[in-house]
């Protein structure tokens, strides 16, 4: 056909169509250039990000042992039911809560909370829905694999506390890192991710960094449904280091037995080695089962148990040894005596102060339990003469008491290797507010403070630390629980990017003890007084052990806060033995049980007996073994 013969510019019209076709193809070419050349790398990264996944391999957490190698905490493999975040990004699973709750026997409310959490925190890759999955749970998940591809079964090491409530406060427990913790900059810096397990309370928290180890990972390729297609790389985890603690489990059990059998079943017993600060016993009652937080936190019963721990008025989660604060009562007289000697209020040669059966301040008479004449210091300690200390404190003045408080570091934490230790409260901390309220610091407050009442509340650990210096020439050590972290081998080949070097063994980084200066003479009269408490017809005479002289001090602390209902006094006994070459120092506090010599002292004796049974069984011949 001869197009040019035709009318209507047919040739131009055909050409127009051809041009339009080429323009359309050119548009495609330009768009291709933009996607592949300009943004090629961007899309390449996007493609890689959606197909490459790092699946963490949790590191086995280090075990915890007592000083003799007895197992206190371990991990064991358990099956968990997990929820894959990748899967549920594409669907709304709110309507599956009922199915999950029924199929897995998990608390419905808990599931709602978990789903809200995973929506808020996109960092979750896998969220644990149920720990300790049973055969039934696993079967249920497998049977519903088509229906609920977001559910998986994972084998993970789980913390296990074989001793249950024993030593619970000291050990702590582990749990999923909280959203609040994840927001802290230092947590982000350490690379924590949602779902990570960390220590909460006790040694688990304090030494989390070393116990935790370094997780490994599998670098895998997944398809669009998140199913693993192949493995690119595997980096093995480095297990956490095993912790050997200073705890002596046998003594611990003996102490806990005493608390359990006490009249109120509330209190604390702490034992240390006064020669180095190692903590042999740290018992606090009532206690809790850490397994509840680890194994049962997803079940309705477990959640009830945890909530009961948190709301119980007896506060079972409180570690009374380091978080409880009590009036020390007469046990306070030991550091006070040393302070008075140091400051020259009395001297070793002339330590007599009048008792007077009490003292009159203004028009109020505060009495002593007896009438002791004008006794020397050691006698005042042995008989716990209040009148002596009323006058001694007035002589030292409140400034002298505060100087003593500073000398014995009652204004600081003891430095024990546990989290959340409380600081004692003393006239030093109270003075500003008292003076502000009352215009001045009155003498009666000084008198009350002299016998560990009113403005004096101390943590048991700080009191034991202060008193136990008497047997070791004034050396005040930092109490601690870490004996040794065991070494752990390297992971991977040296030079590799993923190489994790070995970690060597290390012990507690023990600072030099603070020296409380005393002359041998000064030291001796305080020591003699404490010896007399048990061995010289003093307030603790009932717990005397032949051949193993205990030096101690009783305390009976009134507590006005609970006094309204006629609550009993707190019963104290703080001691060490043998008196003149101590190997062990023991403190007991039984809440609201009454007189120190009658309740706390026998509890302390039981710990000594357990100690003797292990270390000096010859001394028990005849009396103790026969009893058993």
């Amino acid at each position, binding site marked *: *056909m001869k197009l040019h013969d035709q009318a209507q510019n047919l040739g131009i*019209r055909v050409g127009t*169509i051809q041009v339009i076709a080429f323009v359309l193809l050119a*548009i*495609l*070419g330009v*768009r291709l250039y933009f996607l592949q050349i300009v943004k090629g790398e961007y899309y390449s990264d996007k493609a890689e990000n959606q197909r490459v996944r790092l699946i963490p391999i949790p590191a086995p957490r280090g075990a915890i042992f007592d000083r003799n190698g007895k197992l206190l905490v371990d991990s064991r493999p358990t099956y968990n039911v997990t929820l894959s975040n990748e899967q549920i990004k594409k669907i709304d699973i709110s309507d599956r809560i009922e199915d999950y709750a029924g199929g897995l026997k998990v608390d419905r409310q808990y599931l709602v909370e978990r789903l809200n959490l995973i929506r808020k925190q996109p960092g979750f890759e896998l969220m644990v829905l149920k720990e300790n999955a049973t055969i039934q749970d696993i079967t249920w998940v497998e049977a519903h694999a088509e229906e609920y591809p977001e559910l998986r079964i994972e084998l993970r090491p789980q913390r296990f506390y074989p001793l249950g409530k024993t030593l619970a406060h000291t050990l702590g427990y582990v749990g999923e890192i909280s959203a609040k913790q994840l927001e802290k900059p230092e947590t982000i810096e350490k690379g924590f991710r949602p779902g990570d397990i960390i220590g909460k309370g006790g040694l688990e928290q304090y030494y989390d960094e070393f116990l935790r180890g370094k997780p490994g990972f599998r670098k895998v390729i997944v*398809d669009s449904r998140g199913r693993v297609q192949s493995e690119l790389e595997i980096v093995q985890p480095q297990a956490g280091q095993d912790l050997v603690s200073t705890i002596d489990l046998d003594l611990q059990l003996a102490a806990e037995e005493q608390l359990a059998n006490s009249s109120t079943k509330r209190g604390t017993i702490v034992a240390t080695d006064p020669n180095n600060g190692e903590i042999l016993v740290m018992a606090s009652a009532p206690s809790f089962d850490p397994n509840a937080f680890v194994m049962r936190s997803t079940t309705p019963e477990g959640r009830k148990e945890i909530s009961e721990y948190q709301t119980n008025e007896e506060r079972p989660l409180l570690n009374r040894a380091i978080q409880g604060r009590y009036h020390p009562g007469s046990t306070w007289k030991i550091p006070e005596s040393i302070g008075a000697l140091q400051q020259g209020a009395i001297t070793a040669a002339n330590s007599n102060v009048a008792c007077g059966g009490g003292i009159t301040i203004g028009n109020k008479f505060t009495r002593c339990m007896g009438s002791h004449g004008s006794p020397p210091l050691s006698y005042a300690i042995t008989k716990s003469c209040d009148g002596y200390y009323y006058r001694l404190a007035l002589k030292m003045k409140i400034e002298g008491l505060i100087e003593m408080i500073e000398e014995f570091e009652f204004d600081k934490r003891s430095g024990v290797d546990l989290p959340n230790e409380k600081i004692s409260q003393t006239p030093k901390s109270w003075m500003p507010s008292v003076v502000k309220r009352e215009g001045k610091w009155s003498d009666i407050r000084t008198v009350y403070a002299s016998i560990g009442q009113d403005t004096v509340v101390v943590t048991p650990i700080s009191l034991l630390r202060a008193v136990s210096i008497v047997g070791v020439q004034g050396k005040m050590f930092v109490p601690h629980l870490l004996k040794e972290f065991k070494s752990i081998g390297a992971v991977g080949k040296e030079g590799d990017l993923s190489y994790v070097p070995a970690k060597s063994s290390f012990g507690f980084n023990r600072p030099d003890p603070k020296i409380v200066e005393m002359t041998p003479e000064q030291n001796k009269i305080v020591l003699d007084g404490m010896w007399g408490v048990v061995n010289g017809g003093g307030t603790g005479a009932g717990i005397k052990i032949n051949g193993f002289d205990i030096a101690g001090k009783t305390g009976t602390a009134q507590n006005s806060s609970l006094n309204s209902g006629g609550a009993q006094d707190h019963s104290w006994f703080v001691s060490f033995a043998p008196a003149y070459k101590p190997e062990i120092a023991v403190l007991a506090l039984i809440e609201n049980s009454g007189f120190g010599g009658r309740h706390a002292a026998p509890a302390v004796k039981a710990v000594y007996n357990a100690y003797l049974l292990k270390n000096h069984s010859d001394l028990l011949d005849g009396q103790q073994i026969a009893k058993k």
Partner: protein
Amino acid sequence: MVAVFEKRNLRDFDWLTAILAVSIVFFGVWQIYNAQPTENYWSKQINGFFIALVALAVISMIDYRRVIDAAPVFYIFGLVLLALVLVPGLGVKVNGQTAWLKIPIIGQFQPSEFVKIPTILMLAKYFGARKASSLRLKEILIGGLILAAPVGLIMLEPDAGQAMTYFPILAVILFLSAVKVRYIVLTIAAGLILMPLAYHVGVQTGKIKNYQQERINVILDPENADPKGYGYHTVQSMITVGKGGVSGIKGDTETSQAKLKFLPEPHTDFIFAVTAENTGFIGCISLLLAYALLLSRLVAGARQAPDRAGMLVIMAIAGGMTFQIFMNVGMVLGFLPVIGVPLPLMSAGLSAVLSTFIAIGFVISVKMRRFVN
């Protein structure tokens, strides 16, 4: 007679057009293999190619003028096929569309792909016979009716994508039948006003479904579209194309988007994305150039066509093909909405390859007879 016939065939046969089409099909087979290496789509495509090649050879030997004379018969037959699809029991439903017809012995095929050819022939017959003067409104309306019958039946399937590929056929034929320039301007202006209006009304009345809206929204803003929902296809397609870069992953499909199932329909509607991932910018541009060359050959053939009807057949085929390439690749490149239109000669599927080869057969038939006047 027969001897003369064959001698001319060999001399005038448009080898270049045929070879271009065959090359694109084989390039496509390679990409189908890359898309689904573990499936047999690629070998099926080769089988389909041989059937299509025979069809091309046969059609090119037949005098197209005879066929155009018989266009109404083919046209009616085509409409019957489209109607049969809608008969329950005969039509096969795939992905919510009843676009397939299952016939014993012949097997399963998609009539909407083939009916394009009788529709083109019918339009060419009608508009090719008229005198060279400006189109009258009545003629435009008749053209519209010829198109409306198959398009209406296809919309009932419903297959909006296939239906859309029919419109450029009419547009090209009307344009080349001397429709007045003012009508064209008027149509474009009306389209610009009515399209957004129709969309708005469609959304308000619920005629345009949610998923269709989302498919459009994702084009406007792919980065913020819901990557799980209907935007998923577009987002993944763009990632796949972009990932190819300059030279592609060269057949290393272990971690390809198709293998890991991120890319949907990789061997059919999204075959161009697979091409982009495997052969990169170089491969894609080569393919687009091959299409451009093929289209040029068609247009050149149209210019040499012995009569108006032959010219219209070729240009309608070229126009339809261009439109389909643009719709499909535009969708893959993420600037046109996801509509199920196969990429001519590339996408896996016997119906599509066969119908395209039949169309090219016609083109060759027309060209071969360019000196006979």
